[in-house]
């Protein structure tokens, strides 16, 4: 896994502000299952998207997974959702009714409305900045945060390790044997080898960190100060405003239906 550096205006926003915005929008949209609130939120998000300063190609790469996934969520609702209203189409076990059609649309739009800010905000967050913010602003233990950050770098090495393990097993004459049983056995034994290798890499890394005085008794300082600046406050306010507009529009139109009722 490589951490792609995505420049753009969002890179300067504190990771915790981004987290708060994604959380507020996500939670609010989970409260109701109507299509109005989700659609309004999605439209507002789309209107704001050009201002994040990311090239369309980059955006497409980020968002492709949810754009592909959302219709599937809608489709399953369409086929298996609660029946109600007029019957639109019927075949075998499937009853598609007007209620399930509108629910399916609502679900599709909702997945997009929740997923879009989540993905864009997360993808523009540098893991180092996130670690700084978590440790300095939320005071999570440095040992844990920095350890996780260093481990994340190791993850990128695992794909290459796996490939070399496969090749070396073939070279050593133990990669034969057809049938699902042999393949599963091989997969687990190789998985175990990868685990061993990762632990070994991790222990070298831990030694290197320890040799640089990590985990000592001295209170740690932070070379990069994570600040929650006025613009981060503004950013969070904007996120809250977006959620409020979506809910208000939904309530006024009478479409709001509270899921917990």
């Amino acid at each position, binding site marked *: 896994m490589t951490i792609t550096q995505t420049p753009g205006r969002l890179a300067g926003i504190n990771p915790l502000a981004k987290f708060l915005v994604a959380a507020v929008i996500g939670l609010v949209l989970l409260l109701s299952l109507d299509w109005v609130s989700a659609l309004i939120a999605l439209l507002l998000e789309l209107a704001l998207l050009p201002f994040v300063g990311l090239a369309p190609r980059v955006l497409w790469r980020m968002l492709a997974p949810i754009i592909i996934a959302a219709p599937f969520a809608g489709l399953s609702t369409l086929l298996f959702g609660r029946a109600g209203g007029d019957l639109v189409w019927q075949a075998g076990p499937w009853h598609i009714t007007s209620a399930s059609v509108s629910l399916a649309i609502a679900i599709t739009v909702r997945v997009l409305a929740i997923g879009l800010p989540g993905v864009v905000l997360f993808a523009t967050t540098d893991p180092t900045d996130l670690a700084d913010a978590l440790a300095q602003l939320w005071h999570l233990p440095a040992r844990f945060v920095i350890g996780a950050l260093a481990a994340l770098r190791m993850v990128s090495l695992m794909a290459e390790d796996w490939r070399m393990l496969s090749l070396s097993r073939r070279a050593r004459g133990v990669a*034969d044997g057809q049938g699902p049983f042999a393949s599963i056995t091989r997969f687990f034994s190789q998985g175990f080898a990868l685990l061993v290798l990762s632990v070994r890499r991790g222990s070298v890394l831990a030694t290197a960190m320890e040799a640089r005085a990590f985990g000592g008794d001295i209170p740690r300082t932070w070379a990069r100060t994570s600040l929650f600046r006025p613009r981060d406050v503004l950013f969070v306010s904007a996120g809250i405003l977006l959620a409020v507009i979506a809910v208000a529009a939904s309530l006024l139109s009478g479409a709001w239906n509270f899921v917990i009722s």
Partner: protein
Amino acid sequence: MIDNTVSTAGAHVSARGWSWRYGSRSRPTFTALDLEILPGERVLLLGASGSGKSTLVAGLAGVLGADEGHESGDLLVDGAPSRTARGRVGLVLQDPENQVILHRIGDDVAFGCENLGIPPAQIWPRVTHALAAVGLDFPLDRSTAHLSGGQKQRLALAGVLAMRPGLIVLDEPTANLDPDGVAEIRQAVETVARDTEATLIIVEHRVDVWWDLVTRVIVLDSDGNILRDGTPHAVLTTAREPLTQAGIWLPRSTGNTPATSPPVFTTAFGRDPLLTATALTVGRSPAAPAAASDLTLGIVPGQVHAIVGPNGSGKSTLALTLAGLLAPISGAVTASTGLAAGARTAEPLRWRSRELLTRIGMVFQSPEHQFLTGSVRDEVLVGPRALDRRALDRRALDRRPFDRRPLDSRAPSRPPAVPDGRVDELLERLHLAHLASAHPFTLSGGEKRRLSVATALATAPRVLVLDEPTFGQDARTWAELVALFAELRNDGHAIVTVTHDERLVNALADVVTTLAHSGI
């Protein structure tokens, strides 16, 4: 006020009756070691492969866990136990890949300072200064992922320098580097030695790299005792014999390159290649960019074919492709009818895993990827056992009247039973016999390398593909390996070796293919 110099008072190092035994070993690594190193000394610590050099420096750096073994006596830095001397000692390890800690260059160098509680305002000047000292002039937010091995080692050194340690320890800093990387790190250490008063301890096999930089040479024997201790000149003139016996690489100018048989070009085995590569373009995957293109090679029996070139020129990828492990992007690797006899096709890539064993053996660049078992001896037996199973399968097949494939006489004949004698002989020759029951992962770097060579040799493949087979070897084990390769060559095996080791090329290579940097 910000102090911008790197200089700091050198640390005083002493070992007083220090003993150490790893929990998993019966023999102690050190017994009552006594040693004094004065502030500002620059020490080269030498010793045969497995003599405990890395253990000693890990102890000095305070990273030898008390739970890893049994300890007595004292290991002191400035009079305090080394474990409490965090930040006073900076350690650079031999593995460039696993000691990069953070994602950006500046952050990685700042890491040690943060842990020492240095105020942020003082950290960044230190970081810039340390990076300049090691000659890494990149922006601070450059990713650490795409640095070369030499650059990663210099980054680690910068991270250590920024802490302003009194003692800098380099544990085989050049072991995993190509000649360019070695020159880079040597240059960086020289600058550091000039600019600081820090005490310096360097562990290395490559004495020639450091000989004129150090002020003192300490030689350990294989039991962890001090064999010689003095100025480089004194040690060299009085101890040439024991040094050679202990396998120490002496400076090249004094010429102790072990005598090996000169390349004998022989056509006794015929000039028909066992493997032929035609218009071969290789890459790490068929979709990946080409690592090296349009190569035509013939791997001839009784010859050593060396593949050389800078890091990133596709040498390892070519080796894996020749060994029938990696699909080429275009072109083909074809086996001769003799080599392919008994296998399904003439294309090694399509062979079964066990069909490779007696035909093409591969020693990987990183031995750790290769190990499958819990002991050195079992590791060597993996190949023969897999063959044994095949022999059993084949006997079962032979009982059927319709499948009476004759065993090809040109394929190396192989007794069905696991050849215990051969395994012992291999372990003996590669100086691994005393480690037969040790876990492969507990071996030293040089020992792991020899074990991976032994595992490939155990099934006597006609073609041997070796990726950096001499990494981390002392002069003695190096000579042993080279003699073994020469013998295999003279027996008609074909050897392909990817290497940065000029001595190996000079001693063995009959054919040299130089790959140019592909610019990727």
